[in-house]
Every structure is written in C-alpha cells, then in structure tokens.
C-alpha cells in the first residue's frame, strides 16, 4: 500500500578551479569548508551507512559498493541538508521533503548554498584564482556525475515489481526532465553524427538493474539503504536523472516519479503494464530522438513512443487521482498541480518542444543553441556551441545563461532564501534542523536517521529518527519551544 512520498534530491556539482592545481578533491573541500566554517552545523555520523546492501537481497558478483570517504568535509546544515565532498565533487543532499514542490524549493536552496560558497571561497584563494560550479552531469569528455532522487516506499512491495514497473518511466521521463547536451561522448555512440541529445545522462546507462553508480550504471539502482525503519520502509535511490535548472522540470521529474511509484504500491496499473524489449537501448534512443516519435520496441512485439508511453502513464495517474486522491504526494493540491503540469508539458512537447522552452531544460537549451548558431552561422561542432551548453549550467549570476532565460518559476525567491537555513516542517528534517539551529554546539554529529548529542557528560546520547514522518513541526515544535536546553529536550524525549 502506498506510503507518503517523502522525497529528496542529491546533486553532485561540476567544479572548475580557475588557476588551481587541478585537484578537484582539494578544490571541493575548499569550497564546502568556506561555506560551513562560519555556520551552525554538525559533522556527519557514518554509523549507519551501508551503501553496499542490495535491494535484491544479494550482491551480484563483481558489484562494487561505493566507497565511503569519512575524512573529507561533511556537514549537516540547519535546513536539514547534508553538504559535503563526494568523490571529486561538492554535493548538496536536500533534506527530506514532504512533497514535490518542496523538493523544488530545497533544490533551489541548494543552488543558493553553492553560490554563497563560491563567494565565500574567494576570500581564501590567492589573487587570480576562483572556484566555479556547474549544475550539470557531464564534462562532454565521457565523465559523468550524478543527480540522484530518493523516494520513501512501502517495504512490503517486492523490489522486482518496483523495478519492472518504474523502468518505462525512467526511460521516457527524460522528454521533460532531460537537461540536454551538444554531441555525444560514450563509445556506444561513437561514429554517429549526433548534434544534440535530450539527456545528459542517458548515454551513460549500460545495465537495467544493479548496485553500481559509477561503472556500468543501471537504470534501476538496487542500493538498499533505507535510512529509516527497514521493516516498514524502503528508500528508492534513483540515479537515472539529469540535474535540472528549470523549476517545472524538477517538479515534474520528482512529481511524476512519485506518482508512478504510488501507482505501483497501490497496484493501480489496471492490467495495462508495458514492458520494454530493451530498456538500455531505449533510453539511449529516446535521448537521440528530438521528434519524440521514434518507435520503442515492447517485449510483446508491438511498439510505442516516448510521448505515447508518457500519455499512458499520465492517464493511469489521472484515474488513480480520481479514485483515491493524491494525499500520498504530501499534499492534494500539489498532487493535482503535478497532473496539470504533466498534461500541459506533454501537450506542449507534442505540438513543438519550443512551446515548453520556459519549462523544460533541453528545450530551453536547444532553442538557445539554434538561435546562437543561426546568428553566427556555426556548425554543430563549433566550440562556441559547446561553451553555450556548458555555460547554461554555470551558477554564477553574472555568467549563467540559464539565468538570462525567462523560465517559469514555481517557488518564491524569498522562500528559497529562507530554505537555505530553515528546515522543511513536515518531515523529520524539522527536528534535525531545529536542533542544529538551537543547540549546534551540543550536537556531536547527525545523519538521516539519528542525531548524537554531547551534553558534556558521558556517554553521548543518540536520538533515533527511524520514521521520516515523525520529528515534524506538528509533533515536536512545542517540545522544542518548551525546552530551554538540549539536556531538557532529551529528558522530555525519554520521559
């Protein structure tokens, strides 16, 4: 049965250290440290990390769980987010959000954190140096880094069923969630004349399912690390998306995925389940098909198209909403907005992608590239077009090309600025963030599902937070307001 679709987005940002020595780990550390060094924050607690657990109940031979780097800067912020150095990138993991619109808000707050970090780090760098971050997913030379989503799910639903039913959505949602890019960069596309792709990430996917995130990337990631009560919950860790700058694209990426997952949990496919003949082939093919109309082979010998498949999922979702409502998306009105937007954007894409250039990143970028190309009479392999592509994602206001486009906003700028420091109110991120805001010096460390307090007396006290829907303002605001110290808070919690 469906559980509330608590969700979040993790973004690894591209980083370029102008005038630096080319060590991205050091540059990322400088950047994150420059931001967190003056803030109320806590260090990360690695106690419960187990990224090597496989949702299928086994580890496939040759599978490599990701390495955990405990020595690099890793902070929890007062908005409940985690801000740290992951491999060779700065990463902002949003707090747990109650609905897809809140996920957009904290995704934008993450961009603001990175912008402030770029300003803060300037003070620590020698003259002539700067660190610049890009919200994209590839360097156009065959290296990709991720933007991952997370969704709370009912543990009782078999993983194989989730994987089977979500795959068609993961293959085709790129038609509105793709960030677009010039050219291609993987061996699979070598020798083909490719000018533009809908997705930055699609061509990097090589498997249907698996534990890896950096090699042989799978469309469905099997990491089984719920960061919650493992008897009741699963966290679906989604690695197949692009980073979006358009708010409507982020909203739809998260909103439609949450909705299809609700359909899966409530068994609402009504016998209309589609199985793709070859999802890996299809995801790459959809990325290359700017007409959105190329046939995709189904397992039963018929064909569909990316648009038709999205219309099918939309139809099922609308029926689901009529029958059961959309409270499961965290808010009925937000759920209805997901449906409206989904329909609107599919119609737009069907008419002409330029119609949704204010909502969909790849359409926005393609329009920009075509106009720039026309003006200067450029070939598709001209470096200036590659530069336009890259600079679309530059987060510096003075350089960002995205910021110069008139794209539709769903969240207010003041709310984004507030979300840089304030946690969401309707998930456990509220408790995490509020404890840090009030008593950072007494928080020894924190992670997604617990906090460790240091009250100056032995032993350290761990507060488990195994339910993402507890620790909300509704449950703990009075308790926090009524506690004059962390010691009092802990005493009242255990009373």
């Amino acid at each position, binding site marked *: 049965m469906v559980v509330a679709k608590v969700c979040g987005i993790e973004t690894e940002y591209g980083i370029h250290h102008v005038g630096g020595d080319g060590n991205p780990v050091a540059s990322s550390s400088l950047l994150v440290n420059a931001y967190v060094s003056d803030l109320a924050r806590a260090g990360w607690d690695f106690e419960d990390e187990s990224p090597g657990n496989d949702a299928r109940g086994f580890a496939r031979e040759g599978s490599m769980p990701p390495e955990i780097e405990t020595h690099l800067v890793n902070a929890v912020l007062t908005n409940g987010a985690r801000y740290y150095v992951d491999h060779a990138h700065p990463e902002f993991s949003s707090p747990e959000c109650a609905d897809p619109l809140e996920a957009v808000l904290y995704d934008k707050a993450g961009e603001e954190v990175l912008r402030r970090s770029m300003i803060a780090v300037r003070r620590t760098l020698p003259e002539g140096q700067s660190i610049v971050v890009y919200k994209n997913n590839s360097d156009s030379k065959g290296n990709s880094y991720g933007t991952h989503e997370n969704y709370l799910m009912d543990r009782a639903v078999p993983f194989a069923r989730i994987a089977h039913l979500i795959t068609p959505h993961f293959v085709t949602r790129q038609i509105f969630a793709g960030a677009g890019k010039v050219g291609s960069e993987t061996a699979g596309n070598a020798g083909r004349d490719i000018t533009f792709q809908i997705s930055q990430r699609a061509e990097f996917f090589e498997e249907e399912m698996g534990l890896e995130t950096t090699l042989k990337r799978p469309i469905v990631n099997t990491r089984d690390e719920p960061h919650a009560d493992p008897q009741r919950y699963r966290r679906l860790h989604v690695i197949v998306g692009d980073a979006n700058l358009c708010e409507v694209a982020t909203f739809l990426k998260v909103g439609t995925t949450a909705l299809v997952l609700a359909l899966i949990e409530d068994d609402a496919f009504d016998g209309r389940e589609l199985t793709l003949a070859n999802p890996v082939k299809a995801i790459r093919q959809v990325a290359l098909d700017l007409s959105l109309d190329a046939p995709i082979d189904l397992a039963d010998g018929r064909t*569909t198209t990316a648009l038709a498949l999205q219309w099918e999922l939309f139809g099922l979702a609308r029926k689901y909403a009529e029958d059961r409502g959309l409270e499961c998306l965290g808010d009925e009105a937000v759920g209805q907005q997901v449906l409206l937007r989904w329909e609107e954007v599919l119609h737009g894409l069907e008419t002409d992608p330029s119609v949704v250039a204010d909502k969909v990143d790849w359409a926005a970028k393609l329009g920009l590239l075509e106009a720039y190309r026309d003006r200067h009479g450029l070939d598709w392999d001209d470096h200036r077009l590659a530069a336009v592509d890259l600079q679309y994602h530059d987060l510096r206001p003075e350089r960002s090309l995205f910021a*110069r486009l008139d794209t539709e906003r769903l969240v207010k700028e003041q709310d984004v600025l507030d979300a840089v420091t304030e946690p969401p109110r309707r998930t456990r991120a509220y408790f995490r963030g509020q404890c840090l805001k009030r008593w950072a010096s007494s928080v020894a460390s924190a992670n997604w599902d617990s906090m460790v307090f240091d009250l100056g007396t032995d032993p350290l006290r761990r507060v488990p937070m195994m339910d993402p829907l507890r620790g909300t303002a509704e449950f703990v605001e009075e308790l926090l307001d009524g506690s004059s110290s962390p010691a009092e808070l802990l005493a009242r919690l255990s009373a």
Partner: protein
Amino acid sequence: MAEQEKKRRPATTTREETTTEEAETPAPSPQGEKLKAELDDLLDEIDEVLEENAEEFVRNYVQKGGE
C-alpha cells in the same frame, strides 16, 4: 478537452500503423515579432558573457566521474 483527447496517439501501435504528421507552421504575429526582438537582445547578451576563448574554456572543463 475533447480536442486534446483526439490529438493523442494510442499508447501502442503496430509498426505498420506508425505515421508521421505534418507540423503546422504558425503565421508571423505581433507577438512573434516581440519574441524575436527579445531573442536578439538575449543573443547580444550571450555574446557579451560567453567565455572569450570558447575552445580553451570547453577543453579545460574536465571532471572526475562521481556518484
């Protein structure tokens, strides 16, 4: 809504059924002219802010794979 429903393609087709449709070209309109002027301004701005040495800028952007 009825019109929108009509435009929709069925979720599945056999290969033989797949057809292509002619896209309609919208006639130029005052709104179109305004958009064109805005686009020109935008392209002027891009000319100003785009990294000067595009080739070097793009070449120097090298990332380690992540995740």
